[in-house]
């Protein structure tokens, strides 16, 4: 198999993929360090970027780490600007974690083109976030009621619901990790409450496995070297490496 030992890697992952990461990285001796980022940073790309950079900086201080692997996609462009001083950074060419769960960016793209109104559910999403459904509706209403009064709370919920009416499908995906029956049952319950269709997509772990095992081909992964960063491309490559501009190196 591999003649050379694998390079030592540090992994920074979103909490949404924590269960899958623990499963597929268990026993991997070349994993030198691991950090998990909170899921709610998903809603604040700039903060996510800052937290990721701080984690990268911390990891680079560990002498044995040779590459830093990010279990993130573009995530609303949060990974743009990230850079290592010493270590190359590696990520899957993905818009977000759903590619890592489905195992293929093209599979994700064709599913999204076919069903644009899809809201994704996965073990990690269910564990870390209040996904659309009854519980989310009720807690959201309570908050608005307290802050803005009944008239405005009703209105805001109506808007929230109209947004949800644009979606029409709850799709559950997993990599065989976590309690599938419970995850599916939860997804069904939410879909029923929201009057959405339900679908279940079998995940494909090879992409995540190859990411963790340093099997990084150009087609599926991007490595950015020191002096470079990730940048979005609006084509099937998803992202490319770009030289960091001098002014962004020095700012803040």
């Amino acid at each position: 198999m591999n003649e050379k030992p694998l390079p030592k890697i540090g992994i920074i992952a979103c909490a949404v993929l924590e269960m899958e990461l623990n499963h597929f990285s268990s026993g991997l001796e070349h994993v030198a360090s691991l950090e998990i980022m909170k899921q709610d940073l998903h809603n604040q790309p700039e903060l996510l970027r800052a937290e990721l950079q701080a984690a990268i900086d911390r990891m680079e201080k560990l002498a044995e780490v040779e590459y830093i692997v990010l279990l993130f996609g573009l995530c609303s462009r949060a990974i743009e600007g990230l850079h290592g001083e010493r270590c190359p950074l590696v990520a899957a060419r993905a818009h977000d974690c759903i590619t890592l769960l489905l195992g293929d960016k093209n599979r994700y793209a064709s599913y999204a083109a076919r069903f644009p109104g899809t809201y994704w559910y996965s073990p990690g999403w269910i564990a870390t976030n209040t996904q659309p459904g009854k519980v989310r509706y009720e807690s959201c209403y309570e908050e608005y009621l307290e802050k803005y009064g009944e008239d405005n709370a009703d209105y805001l919920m109506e808007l929230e619901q109209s947004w949800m009416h644009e979606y029409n499908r709850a799709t559950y995906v997993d990599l065989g990790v976590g309690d599938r029956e419970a995850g599916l049952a939860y997804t069904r319950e939410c879909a029923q409450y929201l009057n959405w269709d339900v679908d279940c997509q079998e995940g494909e772990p090879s992409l995540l496995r190859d990411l963790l095992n340093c099997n990084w081909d150009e087609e599926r992964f991007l490595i950015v070297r020191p002096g470079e960063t990730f940048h979005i491309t609006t084509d099937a490559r998803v992202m490319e490496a770009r030289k960091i501009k001098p002014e962004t190196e020095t700012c803040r």
Partner: protein
Amino acid sequence: MELLNNLTEAVKKGKRKDAEALVKQAVEQKLEAGTILDSLIAAMDDIGRRFKANEIFVPEVLIAARAMKTAMEILEPVLVDAGIKPEYKVVIGTVRGDLHDIGKNLVAMMLKGANFEVIDLGTDVTPEKFVEAARDNGANIICMSALLTTTMPAMKETVDCVKSSGLKTLTMIGGAPVTQEYADEIGASGYGADAATAVEVARSLVSA
């Protein structure tokens, strides 16, 4: 003017019923329609500024915009009688494949608040539909929104479609993953980093 100050405050706080009552009073007192409108625009300008500074968030903007809308419904006939009408028209929508409309709705409401006529095409709008609506309505600007990195390319297609149609309509883009750099790359006329900036950019584009 205390009445108009109160009206501005009511809109800012999203107190729809208060805003409605106050605008009725202002109309009954025969205050100049343009001045009443200015007090409403002042409220939305303030909301825009505070939203941009992260002092308030989407729900606050939405309820303020709703109060503004309620007040405008009463004021509009008075404005028409006074010969005051929106000078510029905007066609707005979320691009093809993207169903997210909160940001787009915010921009639409802010533009209305700034006295633009707004034709809202909703979500998942094809390039052709943008062009058709701009042509039919004689719009000055087409505003496009996308929340997803996966749907941003539809903005480029729409800009290309406008150009090849021969229309002189300006194009503006915005949405969480969108940047000025992307606007430059695809040849859009403008980029709005947030709802408040979108209004400023729209104003400067039409007056350029």
